[in-house]
């Protein structure tokens, strides 16, 4: 009786350990119409955002968004337009992170995907662009 129970316990422990490492091999699914549409929308916006990254007006936040870093780098007349641009970019980014998580059957991965993107946007950013470091301070690349 005692052996049987311990055997069961050992089996359960083994079974719980096995599947985890086997799962993470595959690529993430990113070829869905929703993701493609978001990608296109962000790509079109990028030409406008790139000059704002260059001037330091807009930078990359540590949570995978973009934010107005230096309002003075934007002429007053354009400030509203830039704020709208930032808002739509962040909307697309949020939708992108959510869609990738959903397309892979794990909506709960959204924040992990956001964190991954936050790192990648920053490490792929061009020299001279600004990003937020871990403590939230703006740093020039």
């Amino acid at each position: 009786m005692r052996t049987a129970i311990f055997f069961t316990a050992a089996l359960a422990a083994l079974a719980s350990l096995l599947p985890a490492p086997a799962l993470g091999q595959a690529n993430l699914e990113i070829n869905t119409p929703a993701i493609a549409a978001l990608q296109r929308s962000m790509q079109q916006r990028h030409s406008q955002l790139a000059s704002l990254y260059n001037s330091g007006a807009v930078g990359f936040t540590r949570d995978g968004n973009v934010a107005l870093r230096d309002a003075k780098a934007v002429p007053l007349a354009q400030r509203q337009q830039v704020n709208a641009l930032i808002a739509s970019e962040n909307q697309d980014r949020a939708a992108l992170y959510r869609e990738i998580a959903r397309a892979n059957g794990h909506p709960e991965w959204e924040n992990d995907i956001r964190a991954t993107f936050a790192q990648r946007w920053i490490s792929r950013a061009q020299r001279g662009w600004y990003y937020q470091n871990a403590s939230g301070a703006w740093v020039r690349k």
Partner: protein
Amino acid sequence: MAKLACRAVLLAGALTLVGCVTINIYFPAAAAEKAADRIIDEVWQLKNGAAPKAEEPGTAPGDKK
């Protein structure tokens, strides 16, 4: 004896539970990084590996600003 059996069953249950949680929260970080890079390539048009900066000034004909 009964106490020990009970403890063993509890242990088995706890381990199984931990196992389930481990599977559910497991996040494929490397695959996510690759996916992120592919999307960033696309959004920033960095696909052809060549220096993206060199391309920027006046590539597309008719791209007036």
